[in-house]
């Protein structure tokens, strides 16, 4: 199992969006992907074009698992409360890439799963509050010394002064730890309102092209592909 945690100390920065879209992107590339919603918010499924009344199977129950956009989806909030959750993930998802959506308030779950994870993806937005929340990513290790955490700057808008400045700062500060950036695109919210996956609602969305590049970077970071000798711009 390749375990990828998706969590930010700041809520509302696109953690669930990234968990959904990256799992969809990797599934589209032929990977066997499972996404587990460990939040009480139960919103991961919305990014797959599923409605609020569509129930997901609790994690661990293998009957009638919902599959959307090529990704197996389960609800893991209850299961994650138990101490053996990490072992159950490894046992049940041994050959899969597993994205776990963790809420901002659930640092305990993040800390419990991190030793088992190939990577933690931490989303931030170009806002002062999200920047300040970087001080809460890890209780013991400074941000620039984290070895298993990669950052994604979500909802960038370089036309706006502060957003552009924060983008430049994060790019400089994080270096290779910055996995990628995703531009702010109203189509993301429109797709949710339309109860459709983003690719179905807005196939030319700027965020979609950014997500493809992000998926490229993620595959390289996870060692699923080898970096090209000379990267070509898309």
């Amino acid at each position, binding site marked *: 199992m390749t375990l990828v945690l998706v969590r930010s100390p700041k809520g509302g920065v696109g953690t669930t969006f990234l968990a959904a879209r990256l799992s969809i992107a990797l599934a589209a590339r032929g990977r066997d992907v499972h996404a587990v919603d460990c939040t009480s918010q139960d919103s991961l499924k919305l990014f797959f074009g599923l409605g609020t009344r569509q129930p997901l199977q609790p994690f661990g129950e293998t009957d009638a698992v919902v599959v959307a956009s090529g990704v197996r989806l389960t609800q893991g909030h209850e299961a994650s409360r138990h101490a053996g959750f990490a072992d159950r993930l490894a046992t049940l998802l041994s050959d899969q890439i597993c994205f776990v959506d963790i809420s901002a308030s659930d640092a305990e779950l993040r800390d419990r799963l991190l030793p088992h994870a190939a990577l933690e993806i931490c989303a931030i937005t170009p806002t*002062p509050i999200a*920047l*300040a929340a*970087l*001080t*809460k990513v890890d209780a013991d290790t*400074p*941000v*620039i*010394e984290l070895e298993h955490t990669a950052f994604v700057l979500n909802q960038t808008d*370089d*036309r706006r*002064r*502060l957003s*552009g*400045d924060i*983008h*430049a*700062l994060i*790019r*400089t*500060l*994080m*270096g*290779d*730890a910055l996995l990628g950036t995703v531009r702010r695109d109203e189509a993301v919210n429109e797709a949710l309102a339309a109860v459709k996956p983003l690719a179905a609602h807005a196939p030319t969305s700027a965020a979609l092209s950014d997500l493809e590049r992000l998926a490229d970077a993620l595959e390289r970071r996870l060692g699923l592909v080898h970096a090209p000798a000379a990267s070509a711009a898309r």
Partner: protein
Amino acid sequence: MRQDARSLLERLEQQALAYYDFTDRVSEIEMWPIFETLLRDPRIVGTRSAAAREVEQVGVSVIAAPASVPPPAEAPASLFRTYEQEVSAPEPVRIRPQEPKLRDFITRIGRSDDA
């Protein structure tokens, strides 16, 4: 608007669109106070980081391109090591007030940023 962009838009009959060239933001970055606050925070940069120590120093700011191009993730510490060597050099090149030093640091990193 750049002439080549204008010509392309005319050929595409999209004169209502405008082409905006985003310049290198690192050279124009505004030193928002929260940036300095965070770059002093050991939870961000660590307590043993040369970057954290440098921000606390009062002294001269030497404007010089780094001799080598470090990997971006190591840029803050390595650039500050270079800076500390220059601080101990016989004569500083220029004296600046402390407030713009962070701007200089970001600018120097931008010159060495391969991205």
